[in-house]
């Protein structure tokens, strides 16, 4: 059998292929040759064949038959074989296949090899793709190498340890002794990887974090040396000494200084020094500055330092480099909650970024602009944002429109301005507006009683122009249905009233019904609107005709509506005026407050969550429908919102679920207190029904780990009825950093003594816990 062709030869040949088919043919031929060579157990050329296989794998062709060959190469004594073998293992094998476990023994042997480069190969492979089983088996070897004096191996062992910890967190303690003098190393490679290891340990375990806090002075010293030392050719990057190490140290300092006053104070000086002395002409300098800013914002730094950080970000915003601007906007978004005023100073630059060509920058600038809107700048900001809405990409329009609505709702200087803004959004980005904005707008319009005439007139005019944007059309038809009489009588005060006859209005509404542009939902809206006008207009016959036509519509929804309305005309005509009268003012839903929530520094999830996701709506379950009726039977449904609380890092602020209920004089009680979980009950009386007690449970957790999947259930004797609302969350944060609240309503018509059995289930440190308890110590005022 002739010697298999060399790798370079193969690559050259494959590159001459002119079509995909030609390439495939060449590759198949070569694979066949390689396969037969593997079958012959040829040691000499195995290395070459596997290398070729790896090349073909990169082109996208299957190479799984080479996996065992890689293992054989790893087991070989030749360095060349090992090199290719380990590379092949990293490319072809992964932890999903059991085959990879065969490597474990080879790696173990190689970790103890006499040549450090072989040891290095083994460490690299383990640290790159070691599965949890492998890591468990080999952790001891890694730990040994972590203590060696050979810096080449020590740095690799440190990163390998990081991988082991990521795969098998329980093994973390095992590496603790070896970390004792990692930071006293002079070698930068070892220092860098040690800092990475320490960072990983601190992030995973609060105990480790407390333990390593004492390293802060040492880290500060190392960082100082890096900045103050003269030119070091080995580690220099554009005049800065070892920026990678500097950034890692800054990151570790951030984690150590978070929520700890002493550590934060120890770092203040060095942070100020780095912030002021770093050269900013190249990307390297800016990378360090960026990390410094992130650290300053996260720890408990003094206000002067924070202002310095924000100013750095402000300067970044003016930088020509797009990357820097992007990074600045991202950080400002994180800090806008806590340092609102400082960020406001850069508002005009941020608004200018809305006009940037880059999509990522535009998005960031938009989010930041919404975060900066307040009562003072609403008019100016809204002008810019509406202009942005006109010209931005379709991807942005939905988010921008929602943001505009939210901002307008919170800070509208006048009702007219509010309605004008909404009209503007509907007419420019009408088809991108989210579905839920239609009911929200309708509610808003209903509640602005004095603007009805103006609103319906403007909407009518908009309809005349364009009926393609569904949300606009829906809102418009609803309004015309409600306030058509104002439209026809020309009562508008705000602007010049238009002359419109009943027939013209009905023409428009009927036009919507037949138009191809109208969605089925929209047709429903217009049919109902026409029906409502039967009590407001005098041309009832026309309306009757329209309604009866749609009684045989193909659309089932329309058909049903038309038939019911027909029935109204025929059999229940006496009820019609009452049924079709003006809608009462609806209860305002609590808006989600995007800017007033619990801050957790450095978390982007908070702003993203709140500006995009309105609160969930809780309603009683079907079982407890009776309770609803007993609760005073409003014909306008009351919407209760339950905003989840975020487990805050400091302060544990809670958003009160039903904040309007006043606390009566009933003392709270502790219902349950066991194994670190404490549940307190607080009581309120709900109006209007005095038979209903409203109990709010507050669950707090004094253990060191969070309790996840927390579920609270309750049972009461048959004479009572029970209803639970949604809990604020199902994670009870550790160390009393916050609590989970849930509302229980108990109906107690016979005024019996309240008794309750509660069942708690949660998961603590991975183990599920369940407990039952009886609660008998209710204060008498709660049920009398």
């Amino acid at each position: 059998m002739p010697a298999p062709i060399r790798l370079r030869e193969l690559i050259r040949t494959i590159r001459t292929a002119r079509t995909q088919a030609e390439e495939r043919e060449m590759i198949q031929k070569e694979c066949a040759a390689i396969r037969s060579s593997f079958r012959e157990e040829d040691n000499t050329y195995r290395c070459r064949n596997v290398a070729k296989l790896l090349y073909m794998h990169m082109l996208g062709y299957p190479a799984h038959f080479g996996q065992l060959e890689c293992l054989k190469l790893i087991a070989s004594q030749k360095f060349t074989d090992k090199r290719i073998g380990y590379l092949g293992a990293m490319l072809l094998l992964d932890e999903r296949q059991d085959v990879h476990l065969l490597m474990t023994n080879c790696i173990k042997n190689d970790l103890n090899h006499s040549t450090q480069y072989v040891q290095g190969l083994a460490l690299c492979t383990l640290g790159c793709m070691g599965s949890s089983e492998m890591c468990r088996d080999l952790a001891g070897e890694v730990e040994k190498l972590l203590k060696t004096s050979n810096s080449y191996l020590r740095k690799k062992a440190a990163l390998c340890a990081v991988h082991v910890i990521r795969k098998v967190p329980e093994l973390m303690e095992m590496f603790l002794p070896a970390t004792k003098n990692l930071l006293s190393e002079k070698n930068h490679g070892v220092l860098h990887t040690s800092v990475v290891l320490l960072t990983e340990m601190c992030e995973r375990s609060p105990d480790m974090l407390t333990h390593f806090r004492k390293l802060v002075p040492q880290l500060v010293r190392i960082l100082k040396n890096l900045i103050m030392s003269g030119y070091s050719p080995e580690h220099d990057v554009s005049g800065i000494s070892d920026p990678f190490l500097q950034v890692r140290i800054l990151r570790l300092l951030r984690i150590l200084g978070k929520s700890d006053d002493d550590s934060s104070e120890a770092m203040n000086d060095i942070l100020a020094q780095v912030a002021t002395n770093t050269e900013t002409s190249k990307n390297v300098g800016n990378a360090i500055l960026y990390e410094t800013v992130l650290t300053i914002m996260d720890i408990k730094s003094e206000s002067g330092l924070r202002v310095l950080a924000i100013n750095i970000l402000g300067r970044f915003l003016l930088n020509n480099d797009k990357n820097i601007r992007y990074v600045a906007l991202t950080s400002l978004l994180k800090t806008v909650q806590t340092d609102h005023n400082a960020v406001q100073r850069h508002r005009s630059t941020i608004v200018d970024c809305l006009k940037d060509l880059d999509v990522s920058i535009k998005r960031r600038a938009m989010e930041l602009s919404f975060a900066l809107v307040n009562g003072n700048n609403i008019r100016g900001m809204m002008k810019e944002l509406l202009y942005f809405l006109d010209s931005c990409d379709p991807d942005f329009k939905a988010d921008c429109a929602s943001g505009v609505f939210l901002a307008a709702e919170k800070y509208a200087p006048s009702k007219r301005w509010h309605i004008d803004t909404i009209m503007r959004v509907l007419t420019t980005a009408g088809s991108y507006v989210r579905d839920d904005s239609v009911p929200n707008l309708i509610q808003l319009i209903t509640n602005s009683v004095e603007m009805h005439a103006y609103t319906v007139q403007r909407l009518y005019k908009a309809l005349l122009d364009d009926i393609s944007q569904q949300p606009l059309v829906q809102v418009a038809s609803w309004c015309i249905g409600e306030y058509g009489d104002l439209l026809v009588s020309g009562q508008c005060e705000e602007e010049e009233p238009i002359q419109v006859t009943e027939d013209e209005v009905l023409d428009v509404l009927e036009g919507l019904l037949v138009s191809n542009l109208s969605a089925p939902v929209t047709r429903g809206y217009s049919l109902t609107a026409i029906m409502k006008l039967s009590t407001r207009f005098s041309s009832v016959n026309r309306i009757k005709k329209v309604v009866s036509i749609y009684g045989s519509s193909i659309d089932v929804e329309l058909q049903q509506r038309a038939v019911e309305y027909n029935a109204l005309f025929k059999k229940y005509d006496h009820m019609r005026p009452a049924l079709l009268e003006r809608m009462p003012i609806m209860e305002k839903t609590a808006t989600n407050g995007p800017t007033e929530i619990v801050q957790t520094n450095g978390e982007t999830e908070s702003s993203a969550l709140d500006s995009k996701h309105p609160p969930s709506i809780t309603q009683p379950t079907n079982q407890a429908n009776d309770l609803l009726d007993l609760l005073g039977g409003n014909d306008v449904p009351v919407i209760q919102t339950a905003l989840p609380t975020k487990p805050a890092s400091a302060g544990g602020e809670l958003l009160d679920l039903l904040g309007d209920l006043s606390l009566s004089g009933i003392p709270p009680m502790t219902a349950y207190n066991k194994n670190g979980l404490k549940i307190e009950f607080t009581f309120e009386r709900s109006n209007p029904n005095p038979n209903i007690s409203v109990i709010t449970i507050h669950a707090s957790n004094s253990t060191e780990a969070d309790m996840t999947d927390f579920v609270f259930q309750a049972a009461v004797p048959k004479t009572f009825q029970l209803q639970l609302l949604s809990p604020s969350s199902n994670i009870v944060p550790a160390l009393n950093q916050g609590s989970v609240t849930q509302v229980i309503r108990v109906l107690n018509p016979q005024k019996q003594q309240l008794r309750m059995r509660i069942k708690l289930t949660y998961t603590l440190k991975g183990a599920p816990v369940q407990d039952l308890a009886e609660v008998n110590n209710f204060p008498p005022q709660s049920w009398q």
Partner: protein
Amino acid sequence: MEWVGSPKINQLWWDSSLWGRELKLNTCERSHLYCARVKISLTAVYSGTVRTYQDNMQFMLLFSRQGKLRLQKWYVALSDTQKKKISREVIQMVLARKPKMCSFLEWRDLKIVYKRYASLYFCCAVEDQENELITLEIIHRYVELLDKYFGSVCELDIIFNFEKAYYILDEFILGGEAQETSKKIVLKAIEQADMLQEEAEAPRSVLEEIGLT
């Protein structure tokens, strides 16, 4: 006694009057939608406060302007099909970027940091919390290493010596983190390993070399 728990999210309902119906239609759909969204975003929030344990750098890709992959290094365990799919998506996204755009892309829950050097795109996927600017520096450092090793590196060098490119990468980065910040030391290690490799090769006869035995 019957256990009563919190209302399940999909049991949300409105008590409706005839006139609430219009609102009801939208609200139920919306409540479904938003509950799904809130649930998902809640999970995101809760897992955000507990750090999601992923490697900082998830993968690095090198590809040409025509989208041909020249190097792929994965620091997370994924199946071959998943890797192919992800590579394809990321390559498409990066190639679609215009030259004046910034070097950062948001994709799923990761950030893609990329830079073009001559005809090759160097692309890293990092966690959302990472410092993107230093990732650019890491990419640059890798390019410098390649350049020093090959002497004015070009795409062909990486095509024909892909295994060397991997060796250099593996001396610089381990498990997604930089293991050595000194260029000199990395290059020295590669040099010495190369020498080891040469010594290990048994001396071959001339005939063997030209493939005759």
